[in-house]
């Protein structure tokens, strides 16, 4: 038992939130970089396993055989992951499942005889199911990332690519706002939450690239514009701010609530053309709201990425971008000044 654990228990005890003796310390969940190491090595092993199968067996000649073998491997991995706490077995299961998925996708692609949106839809379905069902943090996380990627492919194909950022942001927001509500599924919510969070941080700027690459930009919905997608994300951000305000018992009539909401709205509308900014800000706020440092780190990296992607977009000139940034920067400094004036001298009065 270390000191911080004891201190926390005493705090909770003093508030009457726990009774009795402190439970014996179980090992705390391993930090993110150990999980990242496991994810990278599991995925890498799967690639080599797939290459081995491809080179030595005739599996890839028959789509059905490939599909069936893949499915068996996934089910086997599921059984292994459910029963075991051993690191080596977990690694084997992870690699086997990834290889199985590659085989299944290969089989389906061969049977469909095309690379159109049906394949992406099936991948989306498979990855979503795996993210929900597989009883393993890293597996859920990787599946959630692949699911988000296939969702982007499907939406881009349907001409709805601009709405992807907002849709993903709303999923991320919902999951992380319910992190401590869905107690029974806490582990799953966090794993899928991190997967979608990473996808939101990486893919939010890439919709444009995808459109050009696919050549199918806004075919079905010619009236959809990029700013509408950004508006959707901005709306999600405002909703998140509203939820957080309510959580801290700042009511709707309150001056602070009004300032926070209108400030968020003004900043996000001024930055509609800076893709990924609202998402990055939302990640930062959600991270701080739950003392999640990893999440805040992802938020900062995501914002830096969004700024550099903004530099390279071709839709508006650097001069216009410079003007927009100037406005956003001045608005932020102004918001800070207003906040300092508006907050009472003894902020304790606002306490919940």
């Amino acid at each position: 038992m270390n000191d911080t654990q004891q201190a926390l228990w005493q705090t909770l005890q003093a508030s009457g939130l726990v009774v009795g003796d402190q439970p014996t310390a179980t090992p705390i969940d391993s930090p993110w970089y150990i999980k990242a190491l496991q994810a990278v090595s599991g995925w890498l092993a799967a690639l080599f396993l797939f290459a081995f199968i491809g080179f030595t067996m005739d599996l890839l000649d028959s789509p059905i055989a490939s599909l069936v073998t893949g499915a068996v491997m996934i089910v086997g991995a599921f059984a292994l992951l459910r029963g075991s706490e051993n690191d080596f077995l977990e690694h084997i299961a992870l690699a086997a499942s990834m290889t199985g998925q590659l085989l299944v996708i290969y089989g389906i692609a061969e049977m469909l005889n095309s690379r159109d949106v049906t394949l992406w839809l099936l991948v989306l379905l498979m990855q979503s199911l795996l993210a929900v069902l597989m009883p393993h943090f890293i597996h859920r996380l990787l599946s959630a990332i692949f699911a988000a990627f296939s969702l982007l492919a499907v939406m881009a194909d349907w001409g709805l690519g601009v709405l992807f950022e907002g849709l993903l942001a709303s999923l991320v927001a919902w999951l992380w706002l319910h992190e401590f509500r869905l107690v029974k599924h806490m582990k799953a919510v966090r794993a899928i939450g991190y997967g979608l969070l990473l996808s939101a941080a990486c893919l939010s700027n890439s919709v444009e690239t995808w459109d050009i690459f696919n050549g199918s930009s806004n075919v079905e919905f010619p009236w959809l514009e990029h700013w509408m997608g950004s508006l959707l994300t901005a709306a999600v951000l405002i909703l998140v701010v509203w939820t957080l305000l309510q959580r801290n018992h700042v009511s709707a009539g309150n001056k602070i609530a009004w300032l926070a909401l209108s400030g968020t709205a003004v900043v996000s509308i001024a930055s509609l053309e800076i893709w990924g900014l609202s998402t990055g800000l939302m990640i930062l706020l959600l991270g701080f709201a739950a003392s999640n440092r990893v999440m805040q780190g992802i938020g900062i990296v995501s914002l830096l990425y969004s700024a550099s992607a903004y530099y390279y977009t071709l839709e508006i000139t650097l001069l216009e971008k410079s003007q927009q940034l100037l406005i956003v920067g001045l608005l932020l400094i102004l918001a800070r000044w207003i906040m300092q004036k508006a907050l009472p001298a003894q902020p304790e009065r606002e306490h919940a």
Partner: protein
Amino acid sequence: MMTSNRSQLIELIQQGAIAPEQIESALKASKVRPDNQAWATYLDRLLLCFGAMALSLAVLFFFAYNWADLGKYAKFGLAELAIVLAVAVYWYQSHKPLVAQVSLLAASILLGVLLALYGQTYQTGADPWQLFFNWALLMLPWALISRFAATWILWIALLNLSIQLYDGPMRSVLRQVFASQEETLWLLFALNALALIIWELLAKRLTWMSARWAPRLLAVATGTPMTWLAVNSIMGRHQAIAAMAWCAGAIIIAFIYQRLIRDLFMLAGLCLSGIVVTISFFLRNVFRSDFADGFLLLAVLIIVLGGGSAMWLKRVHQRWQS
């Protein structure tokens, strides 16, 4: 090693020690959910940092546009005015540490804009690496008085950039790291290793250097060229001394970050580097003789190394917990 209230509370909730209806109160009591005071402080910092960042980027984008209608004196005037403004904010707000630090960082970034503008206007014929080197040189006094980790990381990043540009024109980040010449990799390694050592030594005395993100970043910048040197040396493209240096470095890192400074991130990085080096050793010596079966062996090897690393790291983590 400290564990956050957050992860401990999650552990308690998962053990069922806290009743579901009490969770929200427990989150507040343990400060995992920040109170209004904490929110106010956080938002204050957030608005300040992002505001300063957006304004600096606005100036940078403006000069990158290279507006033809604007005369060169007007341009220089604007760039210099921006720097003077940033320094003025530092001067008048020096009693507020964060405002002062952020304004000096902004001034340091704007200094680079001014130097780039100078090169653009007068076509000095200087090599690109000189721009970043001079930038680092000229911002050094500000870095020294700033007592701000981000400013120092910018300074080290500029030196890294100028070493890489000395090697050749800028390419994508990945190619920049992996296609550089041997001397460049050694230089990068030496610079970042020195920075890391100095940082760790000073971090014990200076509180503003105690946050772990900066030395971790430096360790990644040290480990990446070193790992690549070792891989190249195993593959026979570079001298054998790199592989030996890697082994020595690995032992030193393992000792320091287990015994002297407990940092699991560094040990995880060491494991990753070890996996990469072992695989390249295997590729060089086994793979070529037997192609297809080699893939299977490789997969098994990665599983063993990855699983072994995870097991060791978790064991160390657990030992530090108790």
